């Protein structure tokens, strides 16, 4: 039971617990705060997987901006009534999730994929320089398209949410 394994188990338990809280809370704001916690724990998992740049970007972009947007919209729309619960849907949802887990877990526990540290990596793996090199040489076209996509999303959101066009 090395330190890395203990850390992973703690983080895994916390992220599963907070993601369960996301779907089980009746209050929407509580769900949103639980999702922020889940994103934060997943970002810490990224950092333990030698991806510090992506982990920090996850906190900066996902937990720091997208979830703030979610919270704004929740507060704007202010759903006063807590939603009704249907037993049928809960049963179906639980059955669906259980099926998915029982299908995926044995498949993914194949012993042919053992250690996560298989490939030897340099000291700067996952650093900003390496990510930038990959983004600006191999993936420069998706990068540019992603910026156009963000522009389109901004314009679309502004037009959709305006009161009168």
């Amino acid at each position, binding site marked *: 039971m090395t330190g890395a394994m203990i850390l992973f188990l703690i983080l895994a338990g916390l992220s599963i617990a907070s993601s369960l809280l996301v779907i089980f809370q009746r*209050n929407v*704001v*509580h769900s949103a*705060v639980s999702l*922020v916690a889940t994103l934060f724990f997943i970002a810490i998992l990224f950092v333990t997987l030698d991806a*510090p*740049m992506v982990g*920090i*970007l996850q*906190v*900066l972009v996902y*937990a*720091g*901006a997208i979830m*703030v947007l979610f*919270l*704004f919209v929740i*507060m704007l729309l202010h759903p006063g009534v807590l939603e009704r619960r249907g037993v049928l849907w809960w049963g179906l949802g639980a059955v669906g999730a259980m099926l998915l887990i029982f299908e995926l877990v044995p498949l993914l526990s194949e012993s042919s994929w053992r250690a996560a540290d298989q490939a030897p990596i340099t000291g*700067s793996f996952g*650093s*900003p320089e390496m990510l930038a090199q990959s983004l600006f040489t191999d993936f420069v076209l998706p990068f540019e398209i992603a910026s156009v996509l963000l522009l389109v999303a901004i314009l679309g959101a502004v037009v959709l949410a305006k009161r009168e066009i």
Partner: protein
Amino acid sequence: MIIELCIIAAKAFLVLFMVLNLAGILGWIERKGSALIQDRIGANRASVLGFAGLGLVNTLIADPIKFLTKEDFVPPQGDRLLHTLAPCLALFPALVTFAVIPFGDVLILGDRVINLQVANLNVGILYIFAMASLSVYGIVIGAWASNNKFSLLGGVRGSAQMISYEIAMGLSVIGILMVYGTLELQEIARAQGALLWGWLPAWGIFLQPVAFLLFFTAAVAETKRIPFDLPEAEPEIVAGYHVEYSGGKFLMFFAGEFAEIVTAAGLITTLFFGGWQVPFLMRDGFHFPWGGSVHLPHLAVVALQVGAFTLKVIFFCWLQILLRWTLPRFRYDQVMRLGWKMLLPLALVNVMATAVVVVTLQNL
């Protein structure tokens, strides 16, 4: 292994100790300093055995006792869990941001080289922006959990202001990153020891003056200090998102705000004013450009560097307090216009101009 952990723990304790103490002392400087600026006496009534100590007893002993013994209530329709969580979410980023700010070069004890920075991340300054973006949550959740229209209004304004000025802050730092070529704050501080034209230290303020002004403005707006403190202004919206908080929770918000002042001062020092650099001080002593040199033992050099860092941080904290009691506050639409229509384009122009200059100088 254990020794490494002990060293890191000692550094973390030292930094937290310094930040929290400075935050407390800043409360005193704020009250007495504002009195000095406004030509009045300030708080001097609370005294121990007749010793009022220039208002120190009042601010550092009487105020915390008052805060901690007040009744801790949650508004009746408000959300109990979120109301208690919000001050913690506001205080946490303000304290952990200081982990990547270097307060000295290296301390060499025997054969152990200790980097005087709590955590040397290779993403460096992005960590600070990540924590700054987390500090919006304290405001948003505190405003919502109070179930109060003024609180919600203050919270929405505050969070919109914070996310707008985060962008300007980030873009203004890109110029510094391009000039020094690294994201790590310790490397940026070290690179500012170089001498331009043989005599001028390569501090960020000389290489990127526009970026300094933009960053300073954006940092003051992020911490919601006057002139940008409309979200928490007393006469305007009854203290905004603070209104339903009293006692220990308000003390946490308060301490979080002062800790953010210290963090902003620490960042400005590291990026633009050389961090722990004393002009002409190298690792073995002073080397003046006109030829003279003074040899100093290693511990004296370290002490000088840490002292210089502390002095610069205190100077910028004092500057922010001076700014608070000098300028009137902006109206909210003026704040948003400044952030989006003036700081953001200026920051982009700064980035482009810096890029052109850097590439030209590299190819010469």
